[in-house]
């Protein structure tokens, strides 16, 4: 499920697979706070991750369409005061359920990883050094 690729952004810190895996809960989580549209969602992702997490912009849309097909979000076109139309996405009940389930899974993973970091804390710099080199 490589929905979000690396694209041409060189600043990428998080690996492609991890970006792809976290994309759905992130989008659903942002939409859970209220209706939004593609560009605003991307901006929020960028802000929340402090610019560390950047997606290839265009690829957000196939993901949104996929979530719509699965029934997790609904979309409507609104006309902006400027006359341009903009597509807004809203989370559905099904989407909230999916978000809750994904959140549980991520919590499990993060908790487990935290446990591991805690026990192997002293090794971290070595691994980091190896990865960077």
């Amino acid at each position, binding site marked *: 499920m490589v929905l979000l690729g690396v694209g041409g952004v060189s600043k990428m810190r998080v690996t492609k697979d991890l970006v792809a895996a976290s994309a759905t809960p992130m989008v659903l989580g942002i939409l859970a706070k209220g209706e939004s549209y593609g560009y605003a969602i991307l901006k929020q992702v960028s802000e929340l991750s402090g610019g560390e997490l950047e997606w290839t912009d265009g690829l957000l849309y*196939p993901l949104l369409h996929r979530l719509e097909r699965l029934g997790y979000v609904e979309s409507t076109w609104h006309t902006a005061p400027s006359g341009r139309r903009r597509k807004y996405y809203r989370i559905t009940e099904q989407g909230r359920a999916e978000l809750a389930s994904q959140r549980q899974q991520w919590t499990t993973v993060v908790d487990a990883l935290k446990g591991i970091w805690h026990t192997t804390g002293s090794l971290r710099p070595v691994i980091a050094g190896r990865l960077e080199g």
Partner: protein
Amino acid sequence: MVAIDGDKDLESQIAEWRSYVRRRSAVHEVDGEELEDHLRSMVGELTAAGLRPDEAFLVAVKRMGSLDELSREFAREHSDRLWKQLVLAGSPDAGTPATASSRSDLLVMALCTAAAVAAVKIPVAFGYGFDDEGTFYARNLSLLVLPPLAAYFAWRRRVRPGVVAVLALLFALGAVGANAYPLGDDAQSTVLTALHLPLALWLVVGVAYVAGDWRSSRRRMDFVRFTGEWSVYYVLIALGGGVLTGVTVGTFQAIGIDASNFVESWLVPCGAAGAVVVAAWLVEAKQSVIENMAPVLTRVFTPLFTAVLLAFLVAVLWTRTAIDVERDVLILFDLLLVVVLGLLLYAISARDPVAPPTIFDRLQLALVVSALAIDVLVLLEIAGRIAEWGSTPNKVAALGLNVILLANLAWSAWLFAQLIRHRAPFTPLERWQTGYLAVYAAWAWAVVLVLPPLFDFA
């Protein structure tokens, strides 16, 4: 001034980018709009941060990702879009002006279909059954179902009143030809009228199809293309209708109700009449959506027919057997020529006029020449017998058709040979075929109107 130029520049750049997006079949118009909105938001933010519009545009496009990747992801999510769908009512881009016109088109189509269905059923109320008074329907069927089709095109093409008058006049002439002569039910001329009037009237529909612009060779070729696609759709609808008929009869039989009467007098005649207009509407609606089928079939069958005809010729020459000239043999070989002509016509209809001659053109030439050779053999065999049999309407009609087709194919073969030897362009071949439509029309009308009195309504 610089800022205005910059804006203008930006607009044209965005328009260009949008046109690239539009070419991707997996990305629909609305998706393009959504992506453009994103692009504009990004450009707006970057220019607000101090970038020049063209720089902002470049950055925004770069961040959007490559179009290839984008369209691949869209295709992965919307794999159905690679199968071009014929949308029945309203386009996917809701709210565009196309929706209103396609809706009224649907309405007029429904009205014309209803008219065709009613036209087929109304004579029953006046005592003309499908079985007992068979020749009424045999003679008049095309007169009943084709005027609604012509009306549909007359509406769709906004045909001038003058042309409408011509159409009405020609249909009236057809009605006279089919019904004014004192033809017996078992007369040969009745059968000939039943066969030739549909052709004559189909070409009248052609006049409506080309909106009265029947002198234009290109428009005539459009009508030829339409005819091919219409036939394909009609056959497909007929196959579906066959299944529906079978299911209807079978299921009602299971509960002890005999539905065959309903099927015979309602389902089949109404379905067949309605399908005439519906098939035409489908062709109109989908002509830019789906690949034309008739030329594809032509591609498949041209080599096969060529092989069979050549094998037949070799067999005739090898065994030195004279072709068994039965009375019906002319009809058979007329049919053969019609098939060859159809293959030729639909290959021509799909050919790029400026493309250089290809191997397929040579194959076409081989097909035409072998058909001609066989037909000449048949005509030679038959020539002596014609005097012996005496002339009847059937023979005159069959022989006349044969001569007409022979003349067409002989000249086509000549033009093909010129084309292959780079002596002439492709256009004369196309013009020859489209021009020849007038000959078919003249012949069909002659058989309907002139032949019966010539043979004392035999």
